[in-house]
């Protein structure tokens, strides 16, 4: 090989690596467009292949979740020993996780709108959490998935509580964010439920309570229904054994909260997940939208049931590139996405579940502190 060409190649690699280290490997406009076209083509090929298997899979998951909810509640109800009670709590936790992660979240994304089954319609679906489905569709499907990782526009980025990037100025309150993080993890469904209230803006007086009246009404309606179910109706049904059922249901909700928040934090807040500024995304092209979704998300690896219980958010990258493609297709799409990323020299952020979670903790910790002054040469 010609020495000049070889040098050129080395130089190219070094530059690419540098850019990757800084976070963003800038693609040229043409490359972005071509990259977007490849993503569109991948999407189309899967869309055309959707059929009975995909619907049957989702219906199986729904049946499994409903059955384990019934089994769980019955076991908690009839249990006389801690072992049976634990079994019941596990079964109910499993049902809630499956319903929230693999069923509710995916159905509400419109992944099954094409089936025309009203039970699988994104706009009809209501899920088993205090977060009102309609509010979720606004804050998650719209805000988070449209403005993913744009600081200031994606309110899911740190949930307006955590500082996870230097793009956000440090305030003393951020010093305690490890504590907020732990609280958010345990009370996740409530955090998600009040997300749309935009408490941070209320506090600063940017918006008033009357602006959010409608939201609070909807939230109160949903939260009271959920509370009635788990903390009043089923406990009372057990008469004198009410405390056992109450605690069991609380445990199941706690397990689901911890699981859901852990999965979700691994999706965008790992060490190498990038953030974007509003300026970068002005008049964004479709290619750049895909590029941002890719770099802002991170995957983790694991066995089949880890994927199912995470609602296939272990394939967060694929989910963000193709939010309305049925989640059971993400594993096969992931191979193609990786192949495409390799060709364009783009980062594909993936590691084991544990490693990714460690980097999340590291990131929450790191940004508790103010940005270190850049060392001047």
């Amino acid at each position, binding site marked *: 090989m010609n020495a000049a060409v070889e040098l050129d190649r080395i130089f190219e690699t070094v530059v690419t690596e540098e850019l990757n280290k800084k976070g963003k490997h800038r693609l040229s406009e043409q490359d972005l467009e071509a990259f977007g076209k490849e993503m569109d083509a991948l999407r189309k090929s899967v869309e055309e292949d959707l*059929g009975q298997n995909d619907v049957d899979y989702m219906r199986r998951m729904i049946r499994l979740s409903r059955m384990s909810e019934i089994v769980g509640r019955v076991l908690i109800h009839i249990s006389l020993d801690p072992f049976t009670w634990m079994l019941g709590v596990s079964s109910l936790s499993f049902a809630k996780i499956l319903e929230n992660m693999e069923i509710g979240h995916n159905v509400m994304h419109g992944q099954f*709108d094409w089936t025309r089954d*009203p039970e699988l319609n994104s706009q*009809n679906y209501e899920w088993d959490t205090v977060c009102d489905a309609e509010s979720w569709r606004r804050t998650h499907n719209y805000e988070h998935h449209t403005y993913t990782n744009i600081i200031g526009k994606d309110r899911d980025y740190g949930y307006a509580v955590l500082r996870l990037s230097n793009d956000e100025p440090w305030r003393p309150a951020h010093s305690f964010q490890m504590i907020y993080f732990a609280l958010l993890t345990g009370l996740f469904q409530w955090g998600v439920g009040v997300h749309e209230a935009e408490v941070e803006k209320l506090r600063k007086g940017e918006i008033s309570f009357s602006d959010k009246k409608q939201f609070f009404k909807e939230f109160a309606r949903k939260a009271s*229904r959920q509370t009635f179910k788990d903390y009043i109706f089923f406990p009372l049904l057990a008469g004198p054994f009410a405390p056992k059922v109450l605690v069991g249901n609380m445990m199941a909700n706690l397990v689901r909260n911890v699981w859901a928040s852990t999965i979700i934090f691994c999706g965008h807040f790992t060490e190498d997940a990038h953030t974007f500024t509003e300026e970068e995304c002005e008049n964004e092209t479709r290619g750049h939208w895909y590029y941002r979704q890719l770099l802002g998300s991170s995957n983790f690896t694991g066995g089949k049931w880890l994927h199912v219980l995470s609602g296939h958010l272990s394939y967060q990258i694929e989910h963000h590139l193709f939010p309305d493609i049925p989640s059971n297709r993400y594993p096969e799409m992931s191979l193609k996405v990786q192949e495409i990323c390799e060709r364009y020299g783009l980062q594909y952020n993936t590691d084991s579940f544990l490693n990714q979670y460690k980097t999340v903790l590291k990131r929450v910790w790191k940004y508790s502190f103010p940005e270190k002054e850049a060392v001047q040469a």
Partner: protein
Amino acid sequence: MKSQFKAQQGGKQNKGNTTSWIQEALFNRSIGSYFNPIVKGVLPAWDLAGRGQLARVVEIQKHNDNATTLRIQAPANWTGFVPGQYVTCEFEIDGVRRKRNYSISSPASLFEKLGQFEICVHRVEGGVVSNFVNDGLRRDTLFAISEAQGEFAAELQTHSLNGESVQRKPLLFLAAGSGITPIRSILSSGQHADSETYLVYNAANQESLVFSSSFKSLDENQEHFYFIPHTTREQASDKRLDAEGIKALCQHVEACEVFICGSNSFTQSMMDAVVSLGVKEEAIHFESFDSAVNASALTKEESHVHFVHSGKTANDNKAISVLEQAENLSLNPKNACRMGVCHSCTCTKKSGVVRNMLTGELSSPDEEEIRICISQAVGDVEIEL
């Protein structure tokens, strides 16, 4: 056409009373909808999620490569039909639920005896459901049906036509292709009584004349019944039926009550023909259907978007999305991202073809869910807004 399916129970209906509040609190949906996936494992013919009891295919009879008769066991609570009516059938094909209207072709007696009825499905080029029924459908398939609908031959049922007894009126039936199905039901049920009856049945060739043996036997056994098959593409001399042709087949056509069933274009041309022969408009009864299913066939330069619920129509031909058209008419459909990501603006397209503005692809002409923020009308489109 208005569907008579029972109201689908989604997540957020029936507010107000205590039972429904408790149902929503415990299940986040109706109790039937919650237990349906489990009950279905035991009772597959029940759909507690809103469709009620399902119909079942009990027999499949292929007439030729392009026409198949299905014998269907109606659900126990189905109220029956008047010959000439149709039902809306909803099949799940490769995961997608698709509704089609099919005229009932069997005599009323079959339903009275066995609770069964028949439909005859003709293959339509590019048609998803008709091809599925002709090729892939199996016995015992379960599907949803609506109550019977349609007024095509309601007056025959009452034995009086425009105030006169049926017996005193000659009847002229004009059918083309699958338009024969409701007429088969009417005639095999004996609704024509003893009237002088002419049946002119058009089809491309002899093989496509489905049910012709039963009409031949009527012709042989009933003194005043005349069966006149008419092929349009069998021989070089064949041509489409026109006013002259009708006059030659049926001398006193102007005195007849006329029943026409076929494609829109056939129905229109037959109506024009019999009117020109002196038949009064109130003596014409018709049932027609759209035979075009090819997306490109429905593509037109001029586009009209009809918003069904509001009754408004957008006639602007500009390159804007259906969402923008709706907004220009001051409809306020739910929407958010306006780039096809969030599905907030998803609504039902009843008919017509739209272009996906991101990929440039054309949709099917079927009833389906579309994201109106990235859909552009191509030709005439009906939207449920």
